């Protein structure tokens, strides 16, 4: 019966999806529950901050500079037709601080650090290192997973802030140095429109939320990966795809709450 088979298929997928959500939530709860070690032995977290944060600096800084430069060029072209080139600083700074810094920073972070985390955890599982730890009565979640989680949560806001700063500098290079927008109005219009609470703090909150989401997804996909070469490769792909979608989805929700007060 093809109809019965289709319905059975649908049921199976639904049960599977619900089970996976439950498993992921339990995994997330376990991370939070076993976070004590990553703060008591802070050296473990510091080591992971080096790998996730410091090593992501190059891509974040270079990308931020390019994004700022493009914003400067495109923004100038558009603003020119209204004769308000002096608002270029406002345009560049607001787009970066509110949206592009946190969102693009998190997307780059997911593909740079998140995929590496998934591959590492997945391979640890495939080579039975996690099982070996449990044999030695070391909890792999508190020893391996939680420090990586907190390193991501710490690194993400820092990286996003740096992205924004470098981007503003890129916009300054193009707008003021190359095109010749007035230096004074570039900065003063920027300062007049960027509000610390409304824009900067909200941007930091966004990047903080993205940091939690990206690292939690990356670690879960690695932990959940089938212990084969193919399984790890699929898990890495899923990490990047899921993180990117979740980042953009959360961004819609957060923006609606922060700037429209829904």
């Amino acid at each position, binding site marked *: 019966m093809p109809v019965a088979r289709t319905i059975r298929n649908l049921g199976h997928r639904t049960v599977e999806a619900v089970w996976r959500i439950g498993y992921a939530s339990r995994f997330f709860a376990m991370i939070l529950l076993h976070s004590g070690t990553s703060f008591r032995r802070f050296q473990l977290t510091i080591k992971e901050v080096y790998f996730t*944060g410091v090593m992501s600096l190059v891509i974040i800084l270079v990308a931020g500079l390019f994004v700022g430069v493009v914003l400067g060029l495109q923004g100038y072209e558009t603003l020119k037709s209204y004769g308000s080139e002096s608002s270029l600083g406002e345009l560049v700074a607001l787009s970066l601080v509110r949206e592009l810094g946190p969102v693009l920073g998190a997307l780059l972070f997911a593909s740079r650090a998140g995929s590496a985390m998934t591959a590492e955890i997945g391979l640890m599982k495939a080579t039975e290192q996690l099982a070996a730890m449990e044999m030695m009565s070391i909890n792999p979640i508190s020893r391996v997973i939680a420090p990586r989680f907190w390193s991501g949560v710490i690194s993400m806001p820092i990286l996003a802030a740096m992205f924004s700063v470098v981007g503003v500098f890129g916009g300054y290079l193009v707008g003021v140095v190359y095109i010749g927008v007035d230096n004074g109005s570039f900065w003063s219009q920027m300062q007049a429109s960027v509000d610390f609470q409304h824009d900067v703090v909200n941007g930091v909150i966004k990047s903080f939320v993205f940091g939690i989401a990206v690292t939690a997804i990356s670690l879960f996909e690695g932990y959940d990966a089938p212990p084969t070469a193919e399984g790890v490769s699929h898990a890495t792909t899923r990490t990047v795809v899921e993180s990117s979608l979740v980042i953009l989805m959360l961004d819609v929700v957060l923006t609606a709450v922060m700037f429209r007060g829904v």
Partner: protein
Amino acid sequence: MERAKLDLWVGMFVVAGFAALAILAFKVGNLDSLSMSDTYVLKANFGNIGGLKASASVKSAGVVVGRVTDIKLNPESYEAQVTIKVDKHYQFPKDSLIGIMTSGLLGDQYLSLKPGVDDDMLKNGDVIKQARSAIVLEDLIGQVVASKAESAK
């Protein structure tokens, strides 16, 4: 990698992060200009504030001397009551003139404070008597059209 080197890198990373945040707050944002150390409060009533917003700047001779902190409608006189915060370093005579201006054609609106000649200075909580409302473009066009019609008769 040895521990000292690792700590150094991570430390520098965190310091750079806080530096970036500080730049966003002070250079890109307006945190320093909003938290002026010593300020006093002045009030002014306007018939129409146009598009003036809270945290708009108060300028005298083009120099920022304060910020708009609050805008309310006075329920008795139906005038807009604007509260401003002015840096203590700048004292203005009692008969100073305050007006709503626009920076550029499409720019933000700000308050311009023109000093008078009185010997007494404005004190905390004083109301600036001479307030000039915002120029609303529609009113201006209406006046021009009316005067044209008048002269055509």
